[in-house]
Structure formats: C-alpha cells, structure tokens
C-alpha cells in the first residue's frame, strides 16, 4: 500500500531489505512468536482520501450543535470566551506544535522561553512565587496539589468545599482512593431565612468544627462552582490556625479584577486556564495550572523551566529541578506526570500578551456586568427565583419554573445552549440552574435568551416546587 506519509518506494524497500540482510518484510518480525502474528488485516474501515475524510467529518459536524454558531450560556468550569485570531496563528507554527518536550535546550528556546513567560504570567495573576509549565487540567492539578500538601505535612485528611467543581472532586476521589488520604466535604451556606449575603459561600461553622491537627489542607474555589466569590483570606486564617495548607482553585480571568489568592494567604493555587485563549474542545485538551509559594517549589509536579546562561553568558532557558521527576526518581518521583500542555499554555500566553492587564480587566468587568444584567433580567420576568445572595462573578444560580433539563432541550431548538442543571450533582439544589455569561454574549443575545426562557417557562411544564 502507498501512503503520502511514507516516502519509501518499493525499489528502495528492496534495497534496504538486502542491506539489513533479510529477504522480506515478514522476516523482520520473526522474533514475534508465530501464533501471535496476525494472519488477517485489522477490522478497520476502508481508508479515505483527504477529500473524502473532510466530507465525512462534515457529516459528523452536522450532528453537532456547535457553540461557534450558537449562543452558549453554559459554563460550569469550561467557558466560551472570545479568542483573538492571532492566537491560532501562533500555535499553528510548526516549530511549536510539531516539537517534542524541550529535552535539547539549544534548539528549544522557543518553547522554553514561552513556558517561562507562561510561568511568570500565572505567578503574577495568582500572586505566587512560582508556577510549573502546566498540567492536564484543573481537576488533575487539584489532585496533585492535595498530594503535595499531604506529603509536605504528613497529614492524611483534606477538607474540600462542596462548592468546588464536582468534576474536580470526582477526579480527586478516584485519585485518592488508595492513597490513605481521607476527604471531607464542607457544605455551603443555604439558609433561606437569613439573607446576610453569605448564601452560596463556604460554611465557616462547619469548617471550624471539622478542622483539626490532622487536616493536611483546605480546598476552596473562588469564584466557586456557583460563580460566587469566596473569602479566601478568612479560610486561609482557619488553615493557619492548625498549620494546614490552603489550596485555592481560581479562574484566571477573574484574577484580572479580584485580589490574588497569594496575597490572601493561599499556599498553593491551581485551576483551569482554558478560558485564556483556548477553545472548549469538547472538554479537552484543557490547561491545568499549578502555582506555589516558595517552600513548595521543589515539590511541584510536572515540568518546570528556569532561566540560566549559556557558555558565552547569554540568557537562555532549560528544563530544571528535574531530580523530582519520574525519569530520574522512578517510584520516588513527586509525580508520574511528564506531559504538560505546552501548546495550550502557549495559547494562554499569547492571549494574555494580546489582552494585556487592561484587556484582561475589561473581559472580567464585562463578565460581571453581563452576568448581572442577565441575572436581573431573568428575575424580572418572574420565571426564575433567587437561590443565593452572595455576590458572583460570571455565573449564577437560579431556579426556573420548569425543570432545567426540559428548559435546556427547548432552548436548543432556539439555537441556545442553556445553563447547567445542578440537580444530579447537588440534590439539595434540585431544579436549580447554573447560568454563565461571558463577554462574548451581546445584549441582543442576552435579551433573546431571557425572552426565550420566559416564554418556555410560561408555556412549559410547571416545576412542582416552583
């Protein structure tokens, strides 16, 4: 068979076989026991030409409902932000995307310097001393952070706010299943009789009664899964009382406006940097980030780039602190991670360079304005009710008159991707709906969304408890 990706011709193949000293290709595989050698071809579809493949993919795309063509009000950890055109052009440069991990620094300064810039930007945003080159996603970054904390202080219990993204908590539960580290969830405030502006935030009473000398770390997310901004400083003070570490999970866009978790006392900050210039990609690749205060630098997982000089004293960058890693420490490594998300990190770095501090602030501010406009407009229609009362960033919880899953199905027919149904992950929030509004949504789209929600709620099935 001929393939456009395999240059060897039949004549060349003959010549090479004879150089090697075998008569046929099959003879190269004699080390494989005969009974293992496949007699038939694999059962795979007939190969397609490029043109046919494109047609096939178009057919598949037609079975999809893509956010590029529609209005997306769904968030829950993955966000539909505007991505400047320049980002794609940078990450499409072959020197970046077809390179391997920068093992040979002399011909990898492009990737190395861009990672160094990424590390700097993450450290700046989070207010931390250092960041690594990135991890698979926010959820796995949290898992690594908890491992670091428990190894650091030798304690075996971690307290995690129930308002941390459920996807993260699931990954944490699976990862820690056989680690001997116990997880305790800290509830959020939900007291309908008390509107003191704290509903939706972490419950301090519960936190106080659960924290003790066995607590390795407290994990808090801000803005939390409900979009609500948490008082990181107060949580960090609680952690300090028992010498536990504070792990903050933060959205990087929000850090354009909100105080850095580093300044508020966090020891480790992790999160999902997909909102920085990376498309939603149906949930992957994503971009986990990991930042620490200085005592934890040598305990970070994954790749780390450092600045140094070459033999002529010129500035250069290398992978560093490698003695932590699996290829040297094997079973004693701080982590098994070797892949980072370099290309996604490059997209984030390019995005931030284009936005600058002012652009980032503008995006964050627009998110706040648009989310509140949407929230207030929805409430005004009287078709949704208020659930929490603490201030939020880009996302909020309401309870529509009809069940969110039905509402979402109806919205789809109007070319709208609706919010996240909280029912299955939070039975205590049955029938509640988490709506995200980014700077990408125009007033027109929002008004249309609000009208459609109202119309559907009025004509739809009435929610029992509504």
């Amino acid at each position: 068979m001929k393939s456009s990706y395999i240059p060897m011709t039949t004549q060349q193949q003959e010549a090479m076989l004879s150089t090697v000293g075998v008569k046929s290709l099959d003879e190269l595989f004699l080390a494989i026991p005969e009974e293992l050698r496949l007699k038939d071809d694999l059962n795979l579809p007939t190969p397609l030409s490029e043109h046919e493949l494109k047609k096939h993919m178009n057919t598949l795309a037609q079975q999809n409902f893509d956010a590029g063509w529609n209005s997306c009000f769904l968030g829950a950890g993955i966000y539909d932000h505007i991505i400047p055109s320049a980002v794609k052009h940078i990450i499409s440069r072959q020197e970046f995307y077809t390179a391997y991990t920068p093992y040979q620094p002399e011909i990898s300064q492009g990737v190395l310097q861009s990672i160094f810039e990424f590390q700097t930007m993450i450290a700046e945003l989070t207010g931390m001393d250092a960041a690594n080159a990135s991890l698979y996603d926010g959820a796995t970054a949290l898992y690594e952070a908890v491992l670091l904390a428990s190894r650091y202080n030798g304690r075996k219990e971690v307290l995690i706010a129930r308002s941390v993204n459920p996807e993260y908590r699931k990954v944490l539960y699976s990862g820690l299943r056989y680690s001997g580290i116990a997880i305790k969830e800290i509830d959020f405030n939900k007291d309908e009789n008390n509107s003191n502006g704290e509903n939706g935030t972490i419950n301090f009473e519960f936190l106080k009664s659960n924290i003790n000398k066995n607590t390795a770390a407290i994990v808090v997310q801000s803005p939390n899964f409900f979009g609500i901004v948490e008082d990181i400083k107060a949580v960090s003070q609680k952690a300090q009382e028992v010498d536990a570490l504070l792990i903050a999970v933060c959205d990087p866009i929000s850090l354009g406006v909100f105080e850095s978790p580093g300044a508020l006392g966090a020891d480790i900050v992790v999160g999902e940097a997909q909102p920085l210039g990376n498309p939603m990609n149906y949930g992957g690749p994503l971009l986990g980030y990991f930042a620490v205060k200085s005592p934890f630098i040598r305990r970070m997982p994954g790749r780390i780039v450092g600045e140094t000089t070459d033999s002529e004293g010129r500035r250069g960058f290398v992978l560093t602190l490698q003695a932590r890693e699996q290829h040297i420490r094997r079973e004693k490594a701080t982590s098994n991670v070797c892949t980072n998300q370099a290309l996604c990190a490059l997209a984030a770095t390019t995005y931030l360079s284009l936005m600058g501090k002012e652009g980032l602030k503008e995006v964050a501010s627009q998110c706040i304005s648009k989310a509140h406009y949407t929230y207030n407009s929805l409430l005004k229609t009287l078709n949704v009710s208020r659930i929490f009362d603490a201030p939020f960033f880009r996302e909020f919880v309401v309870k529509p008159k009809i069940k969110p899953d039905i509402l979402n199905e109806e919205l789809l027919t109007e070319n709208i991707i609706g919010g996240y149904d909280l029912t299955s992950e939070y039975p205590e929030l049955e029938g509640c709906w988490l709506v995200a509004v980014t700077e990408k949504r125009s007033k027109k789209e929002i008004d249309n969304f609000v009208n459609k929600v109202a119309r559907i709620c009025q004509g739809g099935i009435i929610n029992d408890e509504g």
Partner: protein
Amino acid sequence: MEIREGLYYSKDHEWVRIEGDRAYIGITDYAQDSLGSIVYVEIPKEGKALSKGEVLSVVESVKAASDIFAPISGTVVEINQALADNPELINESPYENYIAIMSFENADDLSDLLSPTQYEELTKGE
C-alpha cells in the same frame, strides 16, 4: 578518591564520625564524585527521630537524586544550614560538610558499618 581514616562508612556511600554522643553524617568523596555537581540538599528537620535505614535527606544533582539513609538510629540534633544556599560545599569537601548530626545512642548500630579498608574495597568493586 579520598577515604578518611577514623570514620565509619555505609554501603550507601555515607560516612559517620562519632564524637561523644553525637554522630556526624555526610556523603563520601566517591558519592559526590558519582553524583556530579550537587544542586540541592534537603535539610532534615531538627528534632526528627529516625530509625536506622529511614530517609534522612536527599541530595540532588542535575540528572540524579540520591536518598541519604540514617546510618544509625537516633534524633537529628543539628543540621548544616550552610548547605541550603551552598550545596556545592559537598563537592568541594565532602568530609568537612556534614548533612546532619544525629544523637548517637546505640553502639551496636555501628556493627554493620564498614571500616575505611572495607569501604575502599567496596568502591573498587563498583
């Protein structure tokens, strides 16, 4: 390769010098040479009690890392803070730069450590 008289040696290329109830612990010239330029020494915690064979510290070079095991049982009574900023001191003079001083409690702990002659044979074999 320098092997000093008057010290005890472990098979993991550590040396022990006993002074009264204190045991100075470091790595040998052979060990520093095979690790290469040392970039980091994990400073143990003072007051930490260790049984013989437990990990006392880690010494790292660019491409290698080596656990330092407690060659005797005891408590860490003193550490060598200078190594935190200047880990290369171990490369320069391994026998002058101990990693920790442990309390020396049980003379039996020395029984399976090597004499300078035995240690020399060990390094020749490797």
